[in-house]
Every structure is written in structure tokens, then in C-alpha cells.
């Protein structure tokens, strides 16, 4: 199924069980600590967000964003220290320029602006982290699934005929949980 077709079907019937999947790339020194503080303070925020730690927002490669969207995320959030507070002094200044250009390029290509957002959140701003995550998840939820995924079809496999062993049985624990392509 082409992406165009996949998008069409997605718009027609979004299953009720659908939950948006948002990936948050968080700078180790500020936002990741802020997220930690949110946890310590028992703040509730949607479990739709998956936090990935990066050393600095300056490390944020635009390819990560496209790859995340291609691999099934519905939205991407990039967070770093406030300008001026970078642990590496200037990392987020570079990130700021790069992300501004990249965000415009993605929107130019037809991505909804809400699906890719960048925010500066310090280690003390647990509340801001919670609010940002909540608002991004709600915005993405309103947009629906993105469906840029690579073409791994979801289908029911035919049952193994009686008396026939499934091919090459391996124990569960041998399989890695997440295998990157």
C-alpha cells in the first residue's frame, strides 16, 4: 500500500483504541532532568510520550526526526536547555538555527506544524515539561495517525497446519526486544 493510500484509509477509520505516539528527544542536562523532577513531584503526564535522552539539543540530527516519523511516531518533540544555559555553552544556539530551518522545511513538505515541535525546558521546569507533553500529545491526537510508516504490513498469518511445527522455534528471551533495522 502506498503512503497516499495508507493515509486515506487512516483518515476514514481511526480505531477507537488508537493512541498517539510521541517521541521526545530530551537534552541530558536540562529537559531530561526536568522530566525526572516531574516524576519526583508525582506529576501526571500522558504515557504517550517516549523520552529519549540526547547529550545536548545540538546533537539533534534532523535525520532522527524523519526516521521517527517514518518508523511510526505521530509526533516528535525536541527539548533542550534555554539559550544561554547550554552545558556545552553554545550547543543549543546551533540547534535553534538548525531546527528553525528544518521545521520550516518539513512544513513546506506538508507536515502539520504540530507534529514537530521544539521547546526549551530547564531542569527546574518540571511543570513546563508536563504541560508541553500534554499539549503536544493532545494536538497530535486531534490530528490523528500520521502513517508515514515503512511498509511492514499488518496481517493475520495463516494458521500452521496440524501436525506441522512452526518454522525454526526459538525461545522468547533470545529475541531482542527492539531491533533497529
Amino acid at each position, binding site marked *: 500500500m502506498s503512503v497516499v493510500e495508507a493515509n486515506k484509509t487512516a483518515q476514514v477509520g481511526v480505531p477507537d483504541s488508537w493512541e498517539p505516539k510521541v517521541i521526545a528527544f530530551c537534552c541530558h542536562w536540562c529537559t531530561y532532568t526536568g522530566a525526572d523532577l516531574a516524576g519526583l513531584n508525582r506529576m501526571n503526564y500522558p504515557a504517550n510520550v517516549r523520552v529519549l535522552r540526547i547529550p545536548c539539543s545540538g546533537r539533534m540530527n534532523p535525520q532522527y526526526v524523519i526516521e521517527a516519523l517514518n*518508523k*511510526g511516531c505521530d509526533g516528535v518533540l525536541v527539548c533542550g536547555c534555554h539559550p544561554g544555559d547550554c552545558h556545552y555553552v553554545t550547543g543549543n544556539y546551533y540547534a535553534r538555527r538548525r531546527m528553525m530551518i528544518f521545521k520550516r522545511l518539513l512544513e513546506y513538505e506538508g507536515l502539520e506544524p504540530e507534529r514537530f515541535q521544539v521547546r526549551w525546558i530547564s531542569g527546574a521546569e518540571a511543570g513546563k515539561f508536563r504541560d508541553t507533553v500534554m499539549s503536544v500529545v493532545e494536538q497530535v491526537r486531534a490530528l490523528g495517525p500520521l502513517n508515514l510508516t*515503512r*511498509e*511492514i*504490513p499488518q*496481517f493475520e*498469518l*495463516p494458521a*500452521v497446519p496440524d501436525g506441522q*511445527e*512452526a*518454522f*525454526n*522455534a*526459538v*525461545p*522468547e528471551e*533470545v*529475541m531482542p*526486544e*527492539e*531491533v*533497529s*533495522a
Partner: protein
Amino acid sequence: MILTKQNLMPLLRNLTGAERDVFVPTQVDGVSKFALMDKGTVPDFEQVNTTMPPKDLLFPQTQKMYHFDVDANGSYRIHEYDESREQLVFGIRPCDMRSIVCLDEVFLTKGFVDEFYANAREKLTCVCIGCASAAETCFCASMDVDPQLAPNADVMLQDCGDVYNVIAQTPKGEVEVAAWAPFVEEGVVEPVTCEQSLAVSMEGVVDKLEGMYDHPIWDNLSIKCLNCGTCTYLCPTCHCFDISQDMRRKDGVRFRCWDSCMFSEYTMMAGGHNPRPEKLERVRNRFMHKLNFFERRYGMSLCVGCGRCVEKCPVALDITRLIDDVAAIG
């Protein structure tokens, strides 16, 4: 039997049905290629060659081979794909028909049968239209292809000006033509002779190339090559592929996709050694394969003279000039 050109479109509309896909040369979004015929399709039988060759009907650029996953008991499960369908390709040219013969040799002979290709090939019916005129870059006559003949096509339509001579050449073709009865008439007309302005002499070239592995001609040639994959992807006979996989958790698809000998990564080995590290080796390999290696193994040239690479190469690196240059070497 003859088919008038007025009857061509009614015939085509009649041929399209749910049980098989009909492909015709047409413009899709500015790219000329063989595309599925449906209500809105405007076939273009005047254009001599499509930009994209018809090889992807038999050998798609990306072809899923099997899906694998792990069930609740931790067992691998494999589900093979067979996406081949009954296909009719209407209006391929004699050069493209020859290219399918080359692909048949590679994928079906010498004890190596590629089942994906074999399945698709078995379900493919080829209706070949002869050429009344040639494009500037056509040189199939020099590569032993007659622009009005394609012995391996199921049905051959020779262009005779206003009508086509219909010749059923295989049992499959006879069944096909039998169904065309309302549209064809009895008779035979003399086909138009196709004049090609571009001609090269292949005489002695294959044997000469044998001893030219270290000849300076390859350096002169490769220096201007960009090493992009345009020629290989547009070539109707280039058939190299790579097998790779796409995985998410325990779910994955193994697929094969076109590869190009022009890419440095093509020959890269696991240990990091690359036997064709530079442009020179890669360009030499491509042309040697076209003009010599394939001839030695299968007894025919892998270049069919369609002229696509001549037309589309970004730096106008021209295989006909290479053939001339080799022929001119004393």
C-alpha cells in the same frame, strides 16, 4: 491478420478486466513508463521508448519476499509473498522484448531459477509493437534486434502505417489473439521499414574487449562518469539486486531491491574490503558486463540498443561512442 489503428483503443478498453492487469506506455506525472491501464489512462504508442523500462513488471524496484515474526510461543513464522498477477503488457518495443529475453536467461537458466521472476514471467503476456520510426538515440539494429520483429513476444504487432500486422507467435499469443476477433480483420500488409540514424559496428568488439581489461580507454571513459545509478536503473537489462530487511520489534519484511554496480557500496564486503574501489573499476565492469561478460556466458549482448542511457546520462557518457572507440582500436 490486421488491426487498424482506430480499433486499437476499443481493443484496449476491451482487454482491461478485473482478472488481469493491462500495462500500456503512458505519461505518469511527467514520467513516461508502463502503467496500469484504467479509464483515465491515455496510452502513448507514438513515443518510441518509455523513460522507465518495462523490467519492473517482472522485477520490481522493491519486491517483498517474505514476512517474518515471532508468535506467542516464541517461534519464528514465515509468510511468503507471491504478489505476481496475470499481466498483459501492451506496446513494448522489440528492444524491450529482447531485454526480457536477457532477463529470462539470467533468472531462469543454467540451473538457477528465481521463483519470484518465474512466477511473474509465467503470468506475463507480451504484446510487442514494432517501430515505424526511431528516436535519435535508438541503435537496436546494431545490437542484432530488428525494430519490426520480436520472435519472443507472444503477439507481435508490426507497424504498417495505418494498420498493424497481428502475428500470434506463441500458444499464449494465439489464445490472446483469438479473443481479439471483433477488432481484427484478415489480411497482411507490408510493414514500414524503420530507419535508424544511429548505427555502430559491433564487429570484433566482443573479442577485442577480452584483452582490454587494463586498457587506458577505461580511465578516459570513467573520469567523466559521476557514478550515479541513472544508466543502471533506466537500463532494461540491468538486473542486479540487493536483499535487505525492514524490522520493527519482532516483525519484519525481507525484500529485494534494485542495486547498481555504479555505487561504491555495491561491492563493499563485510570486512571493509572493496574490490572495485574507484570509478574506473566500476565503469569498466558495467561496460564489460554489457558487451563482453554476458556475451561469453549467455551468447548474447546485454545491451539491446534502446538508447535510454544515451538519452538520460547526466554527463552524456555514451555507450555507442565506447563501442566505436573499441572498434577503432587497431
